């Protein structure tokens, strides 16, 4: 069984009774030991996918396996492998953080209190005040601790860093990396690529219930466009640049031209620019956020 993937879905679909097709025919495979970023705008179907994996909602077609266990028929066994953090975390307001964690720990057969205490210390959790008095960030930290505290093989985290300050976000990232280094799997959703690009090995991009791309972060970056800014000695006609393949003029104001282009087009740009007197030339890799938006735009073209 060691070769079964952490998550495997086949034709997984969810149509809600009101007719909304929240997830359409998802085929996804997440290997053990990887950090997988599941990306998409709000309402794309990220939480729907996650709730299907946890058997909180039932698929209209297809199915999913977690460590080879069917999420419908072997849900309890499957969930033993999972630590889950919901997107909109709701805890018992009247309990203190400690009572809440103790209570959740007792819902599982085995919880290593040593590991829990370590996590509590790491995130500087507030344990002795009622949860209703805690800030969103402090609640979220309790949510992270409960997801990790039983040393699950698979972490399913729905927008885990919401409400966390940068320090704790950093702490969370190292925790995710350690978990993956340990051979365990982290599946995390986000609406922002920026949030996961530094930790995820691969990302899947979902939109309107359809998975539109799965790729490694590195190759996404390679495929990405460069932003090129050229400053000339005097005003230049942008038309020759616009005529180059795959090059787009972002702006052309007098002597400064801003372009976006993939790596292979750069040679042509430099040669075209060389016909004029160049004062400065800057080429910078596009932020992944822009690639992300670019993918969305491409996808729009298809429909």
């Amino acid at each position: 069984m060691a070769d079964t993937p952490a998550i495997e879905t086949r034709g997984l679909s969810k149509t809600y009774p009101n007719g909304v097709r929240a997830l359409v025919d998802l085929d996804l495979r997440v290997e053990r030991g990887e950090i997988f970023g599941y990306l998409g705008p709000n309402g794309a179907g990220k939480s729907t996918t996650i709730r299907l994996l946890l058997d909180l909602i039932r698929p209209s077609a297809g199915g999913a396996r977690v460590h080879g266990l069917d999420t419908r028929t072997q849900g309890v066994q499957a969930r033993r492998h999972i630590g889950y953090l919901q997107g909109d975390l709701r805890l018992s307001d009247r309990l203190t953080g400690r009572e809440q964690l103790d209570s959740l720990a007792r819902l599982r057969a085995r919880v290593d209190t040593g590991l829990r205490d370590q996590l509590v210390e790491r995130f500087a959790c507030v344990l002795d005040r009622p949860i209703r008095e805690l800030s969103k960030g402090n609640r979220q930290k309790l949510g992270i601790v409960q997801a990790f505290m039983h040393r699950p093989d698979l972490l399913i985290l729905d927008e885990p860093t919401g409400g966390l300050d940068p320090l704790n976000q950093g702490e969370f990232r190292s925790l995710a990396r350690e978990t993956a280094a340990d051979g365990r799997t982290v599946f995390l959703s986000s609406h922002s690529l920026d949030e996961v690009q530094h930790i995820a090995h691969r990302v899947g991009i979902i939109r309107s219930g359809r998975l539109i791309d799965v790729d490694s972060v590195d190759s996404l970056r390679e495929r990405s466009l460069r932003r090129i800014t050229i400053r000339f000695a005097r005003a230049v006609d942008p038309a020759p640049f616009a005529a180059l393949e795959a090059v787009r003029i972002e702006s052309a104001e007098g002597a400064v031209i801003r372009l976006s282009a993939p790596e292979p087009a750069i040679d042509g740009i430099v040669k075209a620019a060389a016909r004029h007197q160049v004062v400065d030339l800057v080429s910078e890799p596009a932020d992944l956020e822009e690639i992300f938006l670019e993918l969305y735009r491409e996808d729009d073209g298809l429909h």
Partner: protein
Amino acid sequence: MASTELVRRGVLDRTRALIGWSVVIAAYIALLAAIFPSLEDSENLDELVQDYPEALKDLLGFGDVLLSTGSGFMDTELFNLMLPLLVLVLAIGSGSRTLAGEEEAGRLELPLSYPLLRRDAVLAKSVSLALELIVVMAIAFAAFALADPLVGLDLDFERLSGGVLGVTLLGLLHGWLAIAVGAARPGRALAIAVSAGVAAVGYLVNGLHELASWLDPFRFLSSFWWLGQSPLSTGVQYDGCLVLALASAVVLVAAALLIERRDLEVP
């Protein structure tokens, strides 16, 4: 064990409510006991009630009991309406909150993502509701036991136990019904509406079926008809109690099956 923890949490979360309910019910019994000695000697009261129209007596649950006796007084003032009403409010409130209310608040998602069966979660919540009712009714029983010798209510112990048991079962049935409705469909308001509606219609059918003959065939659907009236004066309907217990069991099984059949609602 997951189920044990859910039961434990279910009862602990209701500690304050339970203390409140126990105080209210015990205080009400104490108040009645304090009033009783001043009515005991007034035979006029019985004559006054005897002159009420039959229909009114049936509806108010006066029947043929004597207000001047401890058992008749407690039947009329407590067992025929007030105690069932209080217990129904407690049971339906708690039953609708523990499942439908928690789901509406988004607090069911995290525990159900743990390795436990939904039906076990529903059964655990049903058990804690039963424990809640038992605690409150045990305190009511203790209040009777204390008041009886002090003011000479002269209650029959077996009838008192049976009467308290019957009201507990009435509460259990409607509380579990609220859980079952919450298991079938999300929404706390719906759970309250259905179970309170069933109780209210049952009460009316029981009070009026002898007067409106077309209602008579429906009396079997009334939980109050099975509970019976004036247990302290006329004896406990144990067969009716058995029916209430069986109906509760059926409702419980339905709740456990229904929760498995649907999507969890997300707020």
